[in-house]
């Protein structure tokens, strides 16, 4: 739960709510970008960014190399699969 998972911002889905579609290992889901948007880095500039996604929120921008490294560690810890499953199943009964 605390480790988060890397993904890449694909498109802005709801600008007023700062929501964007993020691709996490092939799974696309809506993620809130409020923590990484400010005057120096606007919402539109986030497209293409690699981010660390934490329970549906992008918590920091990371470089692509760091994203790959983090994903590898998560896979080895067995947490990547768990996170992706949770994303996929979320809200279902």
């Amino acid at each position, binding site marked *: 739960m605390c480790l988060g998972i890397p993904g890449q911002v694909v498109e802005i889905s709801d600008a007023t709510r700062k929501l964007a579609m993020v691709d996490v290992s092939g799974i696309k889901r809506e993620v*809130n970008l409020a923590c990484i948007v400010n005057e120096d880095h606007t919402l539109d500039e986030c497209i293409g960014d690699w981010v660390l996604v934490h329970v*549906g929120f992008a*918590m920091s921008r*990371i470089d692509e190399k*760091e994203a790959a490294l983090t994903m590898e*560690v998560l896979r080895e810890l067995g*947490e990547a699969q*768990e*996170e992706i499953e949770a994303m996929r199943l979320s809200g279902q009964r």
Partner: protein
Amino acid sequence: MKYVDEFRDPEKARSLLKEINRLVTEIDTCKDRPIYIMEVCGGHTHSIFRYGIEGMLPKEIELIHGPGCPVCVLPMGRVDDCVALAEMPGTIFTTFGDAMRVPGSKKSLLQAKADGADVRMVYSPLDALQLAKENPDKEVVFFGLGFETTMPSTAFTVLQAKKDGINNFSLFCNHITIIPTVKAILDSPDMQIDGFLGPGHVSMVIGTRPYEFIASHYKRPLVVAGFEPLDVLHSVWMVLMQIVEGRAEIENQYARIVPDEGNDEALAAVAEVFELREFFEWRGLGSIDHSGVRMRKEFVAFDAERKFTVPDIKIADPKSCQCGEVLKGVIKPFDCKVFGKACTPETPLGALMVSSEGACAAYYQYGDPARMRELEKA
């Protein structure tokens, strides 16, 4: 467990280990007792066990697995409150998956669900908010737990609910905060800790400055560490370097993710929605002053604790459980009388057995590092 050869960069791992082995010979304390280094974060605990890092370190270093797994420190009474909320008619109770199997005094959320309560696992508090939009005739309660890493996510969700006027959404706030907790550990008389590995992702939110008192007041080194096995080894080395050189400073090994000033946007949202509680109850550690947050009164309408009545009864941890001593590093998990017998990952008695970040589950799954080390040498 892995071997150094399987690390991403075995050369680097080997040279770090060599350096670590050399440093411990320079530390006087090591002649009488091991150096105790606590990793505060459950993510580190998991990584340390998964990669067998403890077994690779010299016997002069003992890692203490701290209270950084939010699911593990949740007291039984709070789980009972969750069950009570979940069993209210017309309620959809939403939670992260990790919390489903934590035992309450009568049942876990998973058992409540089997008994007919509408309990749903969600990946994000945003999904709970979405459920509230889709089910206007139901009350949707989200079980918010975790340290500063997850606090911004629930804060932003509550702000969004307020903005969108979604009145059937509320948060059962059980967030805890790291600084008073580390302070309580440092003040505890049965604790001997020489240095800390600081939590990576909590620090991504709060930055490194809030830890300053650990260096200035308690004279202990703290190194904010990443999760990769090389990060952990590197950070242990940095702690030892400080001890050898007689320094106590806050250092940041994980600067590629953790800015020293933290995340302003996240901190602003947290400050807007939450305020410190006078105290918060922890499993095994008792009550710690200012260690939890509640929602500010402007958000009463979204606060499950005030919107509904929760039983809020204090339930003592079961007698056979020794989670508290394990959390403080006073005993090792297998010293607990019920470890591996009455208490296993399938039938957890204590919360440390529930999550892969809990010390007991890690020992159960990966074995005792000290014994592994002996076996390896034999």
